[in-house]
């Protein structure tokens, strides 16, 4: 019997190498848990039918001595990551039968390592949501309390790891969609630097914000996956070239972390969350970190900026779904009606809302007031953060202002759902890396998360602080 509850990548690799168990046995153990738990949690939309050949390849790598740290590691994939020959639907009806015609960059990289992809996980439709409730394929439940949401949009990926239905998972972020479900499910979740991981083969939502990010139980697991998927890719024009990566000087840590006080005060933080955050800061002090107040006057506008830029990019990205080249086609008398009917029936309510919001924001007469202004404020926020990073290694906030909420609680009030992302937005807007690390549980067993955000391409700082913090919880 393999103890999945505390299993890490390094431990699993060690056991596979020593022959304590085989890849077949490891995968079988996860499949047994999926069989037992998935009907209640709905974390997976599909378990892939080619596991045997994936396992065989991994076992051969162990036999011929080419195995790496990730060989045979069972991983779950968010439903918006293209894996050739497998359905990738972004949990939308409009892509319900869409089979990926090529591998995304991250899959290519991980395939080489012999990772075993167990299946695709549920998500908010086109990653639009913070609770995995906007999926066209039912809600996912939080394994820590099944009456509550797992967070989102990568809620299925988070729930799969938190319930031992996968050792690790990939999610994607546009604004908090890895970090927030990680926090809600008691996991570690990383949003890498924009351009660190290629977006090639990821179903787009907000192209200037999207990034793929790993989820795991420990910082080290997330670091191992990041190190493999990080890298330049010619197929993504926003991927950071090596020449630019080499310019980053990895100076030693100052061991100083900033707390943006005004931002926290305006964040609508729940009392329990604030108390946990203050305790976490005390723990960091004991571990030798200096905690200082930092002033970021414009950071409080981050979420407003995000909810202008994202729908603008959504309305443009989702224009491609017209029922002609792939996905759902609704028959009608003329081409215009084919479009309007296919899009009406293919997209869910939140996707329709955001497409219209973006259409409005980009329309003549409103473009300057919204989009153009938001782009400028985005630059101001980025500049303020750059200035702050001269004095601190990272800044810290709670990952989410409140604890996991009940299913349905925020579904009818879009603005209150959007406010889940308030502490997530700065990292996505400023292209910088950010990590959520578990910071304890409340008396009902719900999980708190603490979030560290570091300068451009300094994921290493997040891993160092994250591992130090992990030891204290």
């Amino acid at each position, binding site marked *: 019997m393999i103890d999945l509850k505390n299993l890490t990548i390094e431990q699993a690799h060690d056991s596979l190498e020593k022959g304590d168990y085989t890849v077949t046995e490891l995968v079988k153990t996860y499949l047994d848990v999926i069989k037992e738990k998935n009907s209640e949690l709905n974390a997976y939309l599909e378990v892939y039918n080619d596991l045997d050949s994936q396992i065989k390849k991994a076992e051969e790598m162990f036999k011929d001595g080419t195995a790496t740290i990730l060989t045979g590691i069972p991983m779950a994939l968010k439903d918006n990551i293209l894996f050739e020959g497998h359905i990738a639907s972004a949990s939308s009806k409009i892509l319900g039968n869409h089979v990926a015609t090529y591998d995304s960059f991250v899959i290519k990289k991980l395939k080489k390592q012999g990772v075993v992809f167990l299946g695709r996980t549920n998500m908010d439709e086109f990653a639009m949501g913070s609770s995995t409730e906007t999926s066209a394929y039912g809600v996912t439940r939080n394994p820590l309390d099944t009456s509550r949401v797992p967070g989102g949009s990568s809620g299925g990926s988070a729930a799969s790891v938190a319930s031992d239905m996968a050792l690790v998972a990939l999610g994607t972020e546009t604004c908090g969609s890895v970090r927030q479900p990680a926090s809600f499910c008691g996991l570690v979740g990383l949003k890498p630097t924009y351009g660190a991981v290629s977006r090639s083969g990821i179903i787009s939502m907000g192209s200037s914000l999207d990034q793929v990010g790993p989820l795991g139980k420990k910082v080290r697991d997330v670091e191992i996956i990041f190190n493999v998927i990080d890298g330049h890719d010619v197929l993504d024009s926003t991927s950071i070239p090596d020449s630019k990566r080499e310019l980053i000087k990895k100076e030693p840590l100052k061991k100083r972390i900033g707390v943006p006080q005004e931002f926290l005060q305006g964040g609508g933080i729940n009392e329990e969350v604030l108390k946990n955050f203050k305790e976490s800061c005390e723990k960091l002090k004991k571990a030798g970190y200096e905690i200082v107040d930092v002033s970021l006057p414009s950071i409080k506008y981050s979420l407003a900026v995000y909810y202008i830029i994202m729908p603008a990019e959504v309305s443009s990205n989702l224009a491609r779904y017209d029922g002609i*080249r792939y996905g759902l086609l609704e028959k009608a008398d003329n081409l215009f009606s084919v479009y309007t009917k296919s899009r009406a029936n293919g997209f869910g309510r939140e996707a329709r809302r955001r497409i219209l919001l973006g259409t409005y924001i980009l329309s003549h007469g409103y473009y300057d007031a919204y989009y153009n202004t938001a782009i400028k404020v985005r630059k101001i926020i980025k500049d303020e953060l750059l200035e702050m990073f001269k004095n601190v290694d990272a800044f810290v906030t709670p990952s989410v202002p409140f604890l996991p909420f009940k299913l349905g609680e925020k579904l009818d009030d879009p603005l209150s759902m959007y406010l889940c992302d308030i502490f997530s937005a700065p990292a996505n807007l400023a292209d910088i890396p950010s990590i959520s690390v578990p910071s304890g549980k409340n008396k009902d067993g719900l999980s708190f998360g603490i979030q560290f955000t570091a300068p451009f391409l300094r994921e290493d700082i997040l891993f160092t602080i994250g591992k130090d913090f992990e030891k204290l919880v």
Partner: protein
Amino acid sequence: MCYSISMKSEDIKKLADLARIDMSENEMQEIAKSFDSILAYVGQVQEVSKLNDQKSLEKNADDYFLNNVMREDNVTNKSGEYTDKILKQAPDTEGGFLKVKQIL
């Protein structure tokens, strides 16, 4: 500060037409209502642009994206290499073409 905008369902109808989405009257009303609170919230960005010095605001959105990535215009795959795979994803095809309703 208040950025109150009152959307009507006619305004939403116009947007839905532009975005090519059929929409029921009920949904248009619901969206109009949610837009009022969302637009009031995102309208805050106008405050910060007033507070900051004008120099950083003179630039246009495009100035922040001036980073073209170029490559030689070479063909990188064999002719027809992906045709079958891609056409298999299309809901309606005929003789290697995508089929659409008559346009003219």
